[in-house]
């Protein structure tokens, strides 16, 4: 039981992150529909974000916010979760949002001009 607990503490978020990453990559690489590809890219980004939060977390972590009751530092040692990756995730989420918005816009325009959302059919007649 102890071993399982330690295993879960060590690996659960990492495995989750990698699973999400792999699923996203699989979706991106196998679906021909542009929207699904964009969804796949988004899922990949989620996997990365989860990974970044996972490396900030440890089993005894408290939230990194000073409140009246929350002690971040005990005996000269920081006990909170690592705030830096969390702030990086904030940034990464916004960047992912921007990329997704732009990708969707391009998808909309592609549908307008090519009349299809199938990546295999988006090509010019003359090469």
């Amino acid at each position, binding site marked *: 039981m102890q071993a399982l607990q*330690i295993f879960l*503490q*060590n*690996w659960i978020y*990492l495995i989750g992150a*990698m699973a999400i*990453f*792999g699923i996203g*990559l*699989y979706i991106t*690489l*196998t679906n021909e529909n542009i929207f699904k590809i964009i969804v796949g890219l988004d899922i990949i980004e989620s996997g990365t974000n989860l990974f970044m939060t*996972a*490396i*900030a*977390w*440890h*089993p*005894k972590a408290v*939230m*990194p*916010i*000073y*409140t*009246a009751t*929350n002690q*971040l*530092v005990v005996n*000269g*040692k*920081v*006990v*909170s*979760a*690592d*705030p*830096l990756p*969390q*702030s*990086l995730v*904030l*940034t990464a*989420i*916004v*960047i992912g*949002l*921007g*990329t997704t*918005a*732009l990708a*969707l*816009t*391009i998808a*909309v*325009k592609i549908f307008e001009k090519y009349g299809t959302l199938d990546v*295999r059919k988006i*090509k010019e007649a003359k090469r």
Partner: protein
Amino acid sequence: MRNDTPALVKRITALSLITILLIGFFLAFKEMPKGSAVNVNQRVSRLYVMKNVETATKMMENGKFFAKGIKPLRTDVPYTPITFGKSKNLEDGAANVVTSIVVDYRGFDTLGEVTVLFLAATGVAMLLFGKEKKRKNKTEPSLIMYVGTRISFAIIFLFGIYIFVHGHLTPGGGFPGGAVIASGILGLFLGKNGYKPNHLGLKVFESLSGMAFVIIGLTGLFSVHSFLANFLPTGVIGDLYSAGFIGLIYIAIGMKVGAELSAVVNSMIVDVEEEWS
């Protein structure tokens, strides 16, 4: 791999590639501190949490920060206890350490992040540029929808403002706050057929709030001689009026994100006719 590769081949290839990649990740993770082995004290975050970067800087300048073999002695940086609601004039006044990193210690990242979002919104608007056609919902929104969105908009807007104003105290900040505001505006779009926000207002708002951020940064440059440096007193940790320029920046970011995301929603909802020829 060609354009006409059968789906099955693609799937099998993708699966095998991803499997190899994940095994690679797994092997790398084995060497990585994880779970209970994660030690925040060995990371630079320790200094951010303890808000003693200045001490560390002094130690570094005296040559006491790096040990032999260039190992940083982050655990040796002395700690001044911080009490919520009492500690004054810390080097960074935000109670939320994530906020203090996002806006203060790594504020330049955030400026870049705002820029990315701004560029995305600009790109969306640029690509969907054209002469607007009259928008028409597929189903006419009901009266409840109309009234409900109007009423809830005020509450949502207020909530958004609350989130970004309290960014330095509670989870949240400019980006979530802005997104909340934009969701209120999305509600308005849903609630009324042919709803048109004030384009000019959005644009001016967006520009001014973005410029405000840069101008705050430049003020830092000209008053404290460093771009994006805090030039205001940090106050007592836990107060609403504390943490120096973090509140100002989060207000600017919140307004900017709100305006930007509303503009994105607007661009995506409205049909346009292109004017290339």
